[in-house]
């Protein structure tokens, strides 16, 4: 007998939806210490699903320390005594760190990792790992666990929704739960962490197990269950495992013989639009000293925020990335930027969109550089360098001509966009 599909929420459920979303947003950005027993119980359930025994867990303070732990541990032989182990850890780690990290952070990360490993040694982790340390570190469970708790799980959950939820309600719930939480948790927070790991110039480990940041999709399926969508026992169990991990910790790196799991950040700051942002402090901080600086969602160098009064217009305008430049100009303030650079207006189009052509004196150049200053709908005011002469040998003397050069067109052929986003 077919069961009627749920096509709309009750009044109570409609009232509950924003509260539910906010609750999961708060879990997703929680800065409480990890609930280690809860996470470890869920990890054990995940391994049992694969027919495997639970494995030891090494807790670290951030994904950066997790990467350092992998980099360090892979160099350790299987016969190390504790003292040798500690010494080789230190040597290996410090050599790795010297190459890429500033001194303060290096010391801080080392202290953090040493503390994590000391705990693990006390717990006799090494004895349980035995001779298989190196192998177990690198044998990722990726495909099997991914299928069990990701691909086939989500496919099964999605199929259940198709059976019981009307198309329109499903789309609407997806938009109001998945899309909004993904913006903040996955696209905002997790992407920022991944980008900063890449920028650390350290050998990074990838994981697609994001713990609390996986809640953007877990919350969606949980809410659907709450309004009456039934899942198979296996799918419900898988969803519950991901839910438990999401409520307990941040990223985790499952391996065949061990798991490295991360504490939550110690601070996360947003602006009113829920973009990562710190006016005078890092937007994301971890307990091991790893910090990420953001200005309304754009990653900026640490000293632009930490030593804001010393940031100069020359440094901002010399940055290679246009979005970072736009953020820097906002930090310094446009009046100060133009004053400090002794900018002279060569041509003002009269339109913020087309902009103005400026001559700017820059340290290291013996003649002023030409810059187009114009409004971008997303980034605010931006400045971009232009040459004195275009590809056709014509001197660039107006903002409109500079706009034509930007896109490689003869000024007579250029038409300014009717729509800009």
């Amino acid at each position, binding site marked *: 007998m077919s069961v009627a599909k749920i096509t709309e929420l009750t009044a109570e459920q409609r009232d509950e939806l924003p509260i539910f979303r906010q609750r999961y947003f708060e879990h997703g950005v929680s800065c409480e210490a990890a609930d280690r027993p809860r996470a470890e119980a869920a990890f054990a359930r995940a391994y049992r699903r694969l027919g495997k025994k639970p494995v030891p867990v090494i807790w670290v303070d951030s994904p950066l320390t997790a990467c350092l732990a992998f980099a360090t541990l892979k160099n350790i032989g299987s016969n190390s005594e504790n003292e040798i182990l500690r010494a080789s850890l230190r040597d290996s780690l410090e050599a790795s760190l010297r190459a890429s990290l500033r001194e303060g952070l290096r010391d801080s990360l080392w202290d953090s990792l040493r503390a994590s490993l000391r705990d693990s040694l006390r717990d006799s982790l090494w004895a349980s790992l035995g001779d298989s340390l190196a192998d177990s570190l690198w044998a990722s469970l990726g495909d099997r666990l991914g299928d069990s708790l990701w691909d086939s799980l989500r496919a099964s959950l999605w199929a259940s929704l198709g059976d019981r939820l009307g198309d329109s309600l499903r789309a609407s719930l997806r938009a109001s739960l998945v899309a909004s939480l993904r*913006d*903040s948790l996955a*696209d*905002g927070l997790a*992407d920022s962490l991944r*980008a900063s790991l890449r920028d650390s110039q350290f050998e990074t480990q990838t994981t697609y197990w994001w713990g609390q940041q996986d809640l953007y999709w877990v919350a969606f399926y949980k809410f659907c269950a709450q309004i009456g969508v039934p899942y198979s026992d296996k799918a419900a169990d898988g969803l519950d495992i991901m839910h438990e991990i999401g409520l307990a910790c941040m990223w985790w790196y499952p391996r065949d013989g061990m798991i490295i799991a991360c504490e939550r950040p110690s601070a996360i700051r947003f602006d009113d*639009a829920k*973009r990562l942002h710190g006016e005078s402090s890092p937007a994301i901080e971890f307990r091991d000293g790893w910090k990420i600086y953001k200005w*309304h*969602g754009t*990653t900026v160098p640490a000293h632009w925020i930490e030593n804001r009064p010393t940031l100069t217009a020359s440094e901002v305008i*010399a940055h*290679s*990335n*246009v*979005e970072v430049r736009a953020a820097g100009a906002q930090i310094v303030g446009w009046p100060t930027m133009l004053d400090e650079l002794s900018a002279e207006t060569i041509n003002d189009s009269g339109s913020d969109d087309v902009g103005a052509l400026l001559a700017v004196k*820059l340290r*290291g*150049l013996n003649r002023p*550089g*030409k810059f187009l200053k114009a409004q*971008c*709908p*997303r980034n605010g005011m931006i400045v*971009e*360098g*232009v*040459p004195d002469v275009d*590809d056709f040998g014509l001197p660039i003397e107006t903002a409109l001509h500079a706009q034509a050069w*930007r*896109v*490689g*067109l003869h000024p007579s052929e250029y*038409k*300014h*966009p*009717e*729509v*800009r*986003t």
Partner: protein
Amino acid sequence: MQSFSFVAAQGEVNIRKIDAVPAGLTPVKPERGFLIVGHSESGHHHGFRDDGGVALMERTHDVPSGMKILYAIIENPSELIQDAQNAHEGILHDPGIYEFRISREYNPFSEEARRVAD
């Protein structure tokens, strides 16, 4: 989502509706279901979902210094989107032929043009 008639821009991607594609273009393959028009350092690319209605090609000859130029033949209404949290708003493309010019800027220190990086 915005729409336009002849010329539009999404961030550094300048869009023009044109009558025909030039010869000698190289097809662009989708990456994970996405036809990338404008690459972003931060991974927040501009592009179209690869649903079969868009054929994307790149011009590799006579491209001004520091630029990229691509063309698309669009059979069904398609939205140019940016894959980002704080994204540039999407732009609807009606069926037709389009040129995409990825804008450049000039570095007065190295005295060379480079693609605008974001």
